[in-house]
């Protein structure tokens, strides 16, 4: 994925020719808007598109609409639907900016500008990340041999007016909620049915355990990275205080303090970078696979549902044959269920195998990059420390 200004975007897809590439060159963001708009530019070499290059502006709700349309489409029951991008969450950042504004009087001008710059950088980082998530979603759809042909997808990309998709109102949200409750109860029932097919049985147990553990690892990595950021913030404060001490001190220590303050400023930037990279390569990876494994679980659920339906249809057919009533109808129902089930099973198998391949590749890429970045930063840090120590020791 090529993007200017998004070099550190997450990349959870293996590199294959998707035939569609996306650009997100402009980040439109206004803090005061409750939702935000993303400019999607799309370059495509697929035949079904009317032009080669086009761009539209889409909102987050429209991405969700597209995702939901896939989920609700029975045709796609046998595929892992790429997980929807997470809702952009700028609340934390906005809160911090507000607090900073309130506390403006209590700190020096330099401190204030410094913190403001940092907050703005943080906000930008979150924004970039959110945009990248949306991009990943679209790329996954584009990479899927069947989904990329979906009509809604084309409309989404090409229709250059507002899709008039509104967010779900309260009634619909309530409906969704109940649907989810029913679904999870049903899911438990369905999961209880033992599968004849070894492959699926194994996948079921595997996915269940994997999903839970990824959830745990994702939460723990988030906590770890938060502590890391707090420590970096502390070093920032220490650096400013040392600077003040250096300017005030009348003894030889003043040069000392100033040098150390400078060092801490630089190491703090590196530490913050380490935390950010860990966030990108590790935490985001885990979060993404949390959502993907959920999508895979959903697929298994749909298959399980189809299996139960098929078995029920068989039982109904037997009953109908026994009573010799509505046999034809029962037969048709049974045929339909059988076809549905087999179709899902076939594609599901391939999907799950692909999922594993994708997962392994993504983990490999991210872990390698994580290690390389950690090394780069540690070496940078070390060099700064060495040079500072050299100067300080030389002074004495």
């Amino acid at each position, binding site marked *: 994925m090529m993007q200017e200004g998004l070099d550190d975007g997450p990349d959870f897809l293996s590199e294959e020719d998707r035939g569609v590439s996306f650009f997100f060159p402009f980040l439109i963001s206004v803090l005061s808007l409750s939702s935000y708009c993303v400019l999607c530019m799309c370059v495509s070499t697929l035949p079904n598109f009317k032009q080669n290059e086009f761009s539209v502006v889409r909102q987050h709700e429209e991405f969700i609409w597209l995702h939901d349309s896939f989920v609700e489409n029975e045709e796609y029951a046998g595929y892992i639907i790429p997980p929807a991008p997470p809702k952009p969450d700028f609340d934390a950042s906005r809160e911090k900016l507000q607090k900073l504004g309130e506390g403006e009087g209590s700190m020096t001008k330099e401190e204030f500008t410094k913190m403001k710059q940092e907050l703005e950088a943080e906000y930008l980082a979150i924004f970039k990340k959110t945009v990248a998530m949306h991009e990943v979603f679209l790329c996954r759809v584009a990479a899927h041999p069947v989904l990329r042909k979906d009509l809604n997808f084309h409309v989404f990309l090409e229709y250059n007016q507002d899709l008039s998709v509104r967010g779900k109102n309260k009634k619909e949200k309530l409906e969704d909620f109940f649907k989810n409750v029913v679904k999870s109860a049903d899911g438990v029932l369905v999961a209880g049915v033992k599968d004849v097919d070894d492959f699926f049985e194994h996948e079921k147990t595997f996915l269940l355990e994997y999903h839970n553990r990824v959830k745990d690892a994702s939460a723990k990595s988030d906590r770890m990275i938060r502590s890391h950021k707090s420590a970096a913030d502390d070093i920032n404060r*220490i650096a400013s205080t040392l600077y003040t001490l250096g300017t005030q001190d009348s003894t030889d220590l003043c040069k000392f303090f100033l040098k150390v303050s400078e060092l801490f400023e630089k190491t703090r930037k590196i530490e913050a970078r380490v935390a950010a990279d860990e966030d990108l390569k590790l935490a985001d990876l885990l979060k993404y696979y949390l959502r993907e494994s959920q999508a895979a679980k959903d697929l298994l659920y749909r298959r399980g549902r189809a299996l139960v339906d098929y078995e029920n249809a068989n039982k109904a057919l037997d009953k109908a044959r026994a009573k010799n009533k509505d046999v034809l109808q029962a037969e048709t129902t049974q045929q339909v269920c059988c076809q549905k089930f087999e179709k899902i099973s076939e594609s599901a198998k391939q999907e799950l195998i692909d999922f594993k391949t994708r997962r392994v590749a993504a983990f490999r890429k991210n872990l390698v990059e994580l290690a390389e970045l950690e090394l780069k930063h540690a070496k940078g840090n070390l060099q700064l*420390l060495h040079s500072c120590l050299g100067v300080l020791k030389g002074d004495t």
Partner: protein
Amino acid sequence: MAEEREPPPLPGVPEPQDAEDLFVSAASAMEDAERSLSPEDISSSSNGPKAEPMLLDHDPDDLFAEATEEVSLDSPERQMILSDGPSPAITPVTINPRADVFDRSPDQDEDEEENRDTFDIQISVSDPEKVGDGMNAYMAYKVTTKTSLSIFSRDEVCVKRRFSDFLGLHSKLASKYMHIGYIVPPAPEKSIVGQRLGRRSSAVTELDPDAKACLCCRYLLRTVKQPALLKDPDVLQFLESSELPRAVSTQALSGAGILRMVNKAADAVNKMTIKMNESDAWFEEKQQQFENLDVQLRKLHASVESLVFHRKELSVNTASFAKSAAMLGNSEDHTALSRALSQLAEVEEKIDQLHQDQACADFYLISELLGDYVRLITAVKGVFDQRMKTWAKCQDAQVMLQRKREAEAKLQHANKPDKLQQAKDEIREWEGKVQQGERDFEQISKNIRREVGRFEKDRVKDFRVVIIKYLESLVHTQQQLIKYWEAFLPEAKAIA
């Protein structure tokens, strides 16, 4: 003895007049010190010299039991002996009258200070152990002193002290030296008041025994670094004698404790009412500098404590992430990825240990140093306050003198001869007091200048050493990080 600082010498204490040769062996000096501090004499409530004469009957082994002289540990010759280093010189000493003690010339002090570089004393406080049980349980620390200085009786001494002993020593030293302008290192604190996470309330946390031991050790080292305090018999007794009477007055709820609190309150009120005409710009400048330093050091201390807290938190979170990653690796069914994830878990575990070590370094190196200096600066400010008090006393004396003179003039007009004589006597008395007050003020100013110079020198040295050590610890951490990630990288690349 050495602790007496207020002239004129009180009656009842034998003055060292004799110029008789005394072999100044370290043993005798120590025994003198021990003799002079017999148990009944140790009362921190009394500031001045003891009322009763020295009892020399305690030590039957003392060859010099007949000698009634008190050896002044502050005699100039002894200073030279001390600075000579290892071997205790056996030189005839002429004992000076005690009045000289107070007027030690600053030149000699400077000589002595140069020789500080051959300062040879090591103190360690270790092995905190619980003694007794129930309500009366306390922690006893082993204080080991290794030295080759002559004023100590042995090269290596090991004694057991409890925390209140340290506090008792401090209160004794403070009462003896603070009001003449010496910066007495502040007492180690039982618990620390720290600000956590920017919460406005400060949490009082009880220090763990090892941290306390470090604190006490640093306190003792600072105390002996000061030339005057090193020779103080209280300090020597603290370091050497195996039994030390309990310093009960350091308990917060004792009578002396309450008296202290009342005095502190009175002092605070006085400080607000005394407006000093600062004639010396140096003092004004220094006071301002110390104010600024205080503010910044406190801020820095708070930030460092926050850093320590977050690093400890990071260490804990990294450990839990490591466990989680290991579990994930277990459930992953692709073998190479599974192995890589387990490796990641191992790396994170090692890193968590690194973070913990770094947090310890943060704490023991920087945080403790800053805490010490915050307290030291409070002591320095206290000394400046003492100078103000002395000035105020001097002013009061002058006012009194003026009044007495006016009274005398009035009496002269009223022509009452008998009262006139009394008035004249009083005037003479107050003239003497004014002179003494001015002398005191000058002396304390001189002392403070010297002390502040010494303090600044020490401060520069301390900070330099600690900061360099701290940076080296950071270097070590980064080097370890590099090692761990370099080991992990091939594993990650090996995922097929």
